[in-house]
């Protein structure tokens, strides 16, 4: 029953518990950081770059990232592409349906702030942070595959930095 939530509490009671806790924390987060399976969620132009990143020249698999089609098995939404107001509830739904711990990378201007469609557009959601909590923002329109990979590595680092309680609460 979510023993891990109480771990910090217990670890204080046992001598050396803190060390065990930190190393456990480190291991678990290391695993999380190194194995990010992303949800195939490309809506627009950025999705093509996402595809390119998965392709031979850049090769996402190198980072241990493979795509899963089902949100239940993925750890990360790579929101690649414009999120319109019509799509926003679906993005939220997908995010909701993911198993925790889960992360979101906003790839490209559209997901950061609406991108080129910020002004004058009646249909584009101006930033997906209104819909889902975003961990990493990657600027670009579309971001180069390298930027995307850099963003993913950034996320890895962020995961490794966080405390147990962070992702337990998320």
């Amino acid at each position, binding site marked *: 029953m979510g023993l891990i939530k109480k771990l910090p509490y217990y670890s204080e009671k046992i001598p050396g518990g803190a060390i065990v806790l930190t190393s456990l924390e480190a291991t678990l987060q290391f695993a999380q950081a190194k194995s990010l399976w992303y949800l195939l969620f490309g809506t627009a132009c950025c999705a093509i770059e996402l595809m390119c990143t998965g392709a031979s*020249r850049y090769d996402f698999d190198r980072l241990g990232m493979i795509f899963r089609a089902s949100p239940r098995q993925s750890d990360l939404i790579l929101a690649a592409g414009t999120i319109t107001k019509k799509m926003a509830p679906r993005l939220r739904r997908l995010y909701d349906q993911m198993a925790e711990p889960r992360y979101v990378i906003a790839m490209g201007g559209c997901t950061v702030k609406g991108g080129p469609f*910020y*002004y004058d557009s009646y249909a584009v959601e101006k930033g997906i942070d209104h819909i889902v909590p975003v961990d*990493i*923002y990657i600027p*670009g329109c579309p971001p*180069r595959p390298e*930027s995307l990979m850099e963003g993913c590595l950034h996320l890895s680092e962020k995961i490794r930095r966080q405390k147990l309680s962070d992702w337990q609460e998320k």
Partner: protein
Amino acid sequence: MLSIVKGIVELVRGMTITGKHLGKHAVTLQYPEEKWPMPERSRGIVVLLSDKETGALNCTACMLCMRACPTAAITIDAPRGEDKKRQLKVFQLDVGICCFCGLCEEACNFSAIKLATKYEFSTENKEDLVWDMHKLQEVGRDVPYEARPKKKPAPKPESQSQPPQTVNPVAAPESESSEDEKKEGEA
């Protein structure tokens, strides 16, 4: 029967093609350690260029880039000082809106704004993607650039429909010293 054999032959042929690739070397470059060379025209992030010697911004607050920008990502606030010259106060670029089209670079007559070949700028906060002048300057510090040639491509002269402007670019390369900026206080 023949078709089965043929089918098997074809299947094997397909497999040899993929199998052959097993032996080939990967075309992948391993990103964080190795990087693909970026063509120098590559449009990465937008930066503000500063003078190589003095370190001051080349920008003269002429607002051409702001006007050219299709997404209104650039915000410039340059109130005229008491001497009628524009003083660049705020130069803000919203990277989250910018579409990296390069129009601002083309519009700028002073080699002050450029799309540099940099791309690694992921952040954890959305606010970090609104870059102010200093950040833009910082990022653009080491970006190599050529000052605009004296003779510019065709569309420029019309740009502000103001004759003096054609003169300005000539002045631009010389605007090395920071005070020279004042010269460009037009429009």
